């Protein structure tokens, strides 16, 4: 049952990205181009998503278990770290270069666009690099102890 919910959630998320225009890099860049002819559409995507999300999280935060009896796994970390700041900065530059963030890139991959496949392959390489660096530094710490 939880797998079916996850799949339907992914499907609805993807259709939402398409309907909203987020899955179209040209529209995303039109939003990010404040100094040019600015398309404010994506601000409304955020507003709509957060309006529904805020109600859902209000309920979710009060519960220990989900409606299917699974543990509520809501992040507890509250610290603004250097990793968060630098990681977000690098992400934003990549977002501005191509107009893709992870969700829309996967939707465009599903639509069969060659450049989306290239973007997702490079994105997985970037995520793999993160894992590699993290494990190497973990090993160094373990070795030092």
């Amino acid at each position, binding site marked *: 049952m*939880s*797998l079916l919910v*996850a799949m339907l*959630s*992914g499907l609805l*998320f*993807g259709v*939402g990205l398409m*309907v*909203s*225009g*987020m899955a179209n*890099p040209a529209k995303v860049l*039109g939003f990010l*181009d404040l*100094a*040019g002819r600015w*398309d404010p559409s994506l601000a*409304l*995507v955020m507003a*709509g998503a957060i309006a*529904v*999300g805020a109600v859902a999280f209000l309920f*979710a935060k009060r519960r220990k278990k989900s409606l*299917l009896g699974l*543990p509520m*796994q809501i*992040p507890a970390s*509250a610290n603004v770290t250097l*990793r968060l700041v*630098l*990681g*977000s900065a*690098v*992400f*934003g*530059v990549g977002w*501005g270069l191509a107009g893709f*963030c*992870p*969700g*829309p*890139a*996967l*939707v*465009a991959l599903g*639509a*069969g666009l060659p*450049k*989306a496949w*290239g*973007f*997702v392959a*490079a*994105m997985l*390489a*970037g*995520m793999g*690099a993160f*894992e590699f660096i993290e494990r190497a530094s973990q090993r160094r710490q373990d070795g030092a102890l």
Partner: protein
Amino acid sequence: MSIDTASFTPGLSLTGGLMIGAAAAMLVLFNGRIAGISGILGGLLSGSHKMLGWRIAFLAGLIGAPALANLLGDPIAPDIEAGWVQILLAGFMVGIGTRYASGCTSGHGVCGISRGSVRSLVATAIFMATGFLTVFVSRHLLGG
């Protein structure tokens, strides 16, 4: 700044946003999970082989969305302006950046802000700022 009224799609964008919010609401209320795409995808690579099923199911739904949209007779043609070098560089930066930031537009921008996380608000402000800056430099300083 001038508003591009010809491209502005308030109705569709708000509707799509409500759908994205409903998808995130479903996932957290039923499964207790955050609909953060970079985290869901990155979790597949992190080497822990627990809880892979829901990640794969969610991503399958996301990637399957264009097929459903085609069935419903709504073919969209995403317009990708960036060249291949830009695409590959951008993909790598988005991949490594979102993992260090522990989230992207969905995990921080939608879910994080929805639950009132200051950390997510800061992350969103930063990636929007560098996104605006990057487009300003590439379109207006370098002439795109």
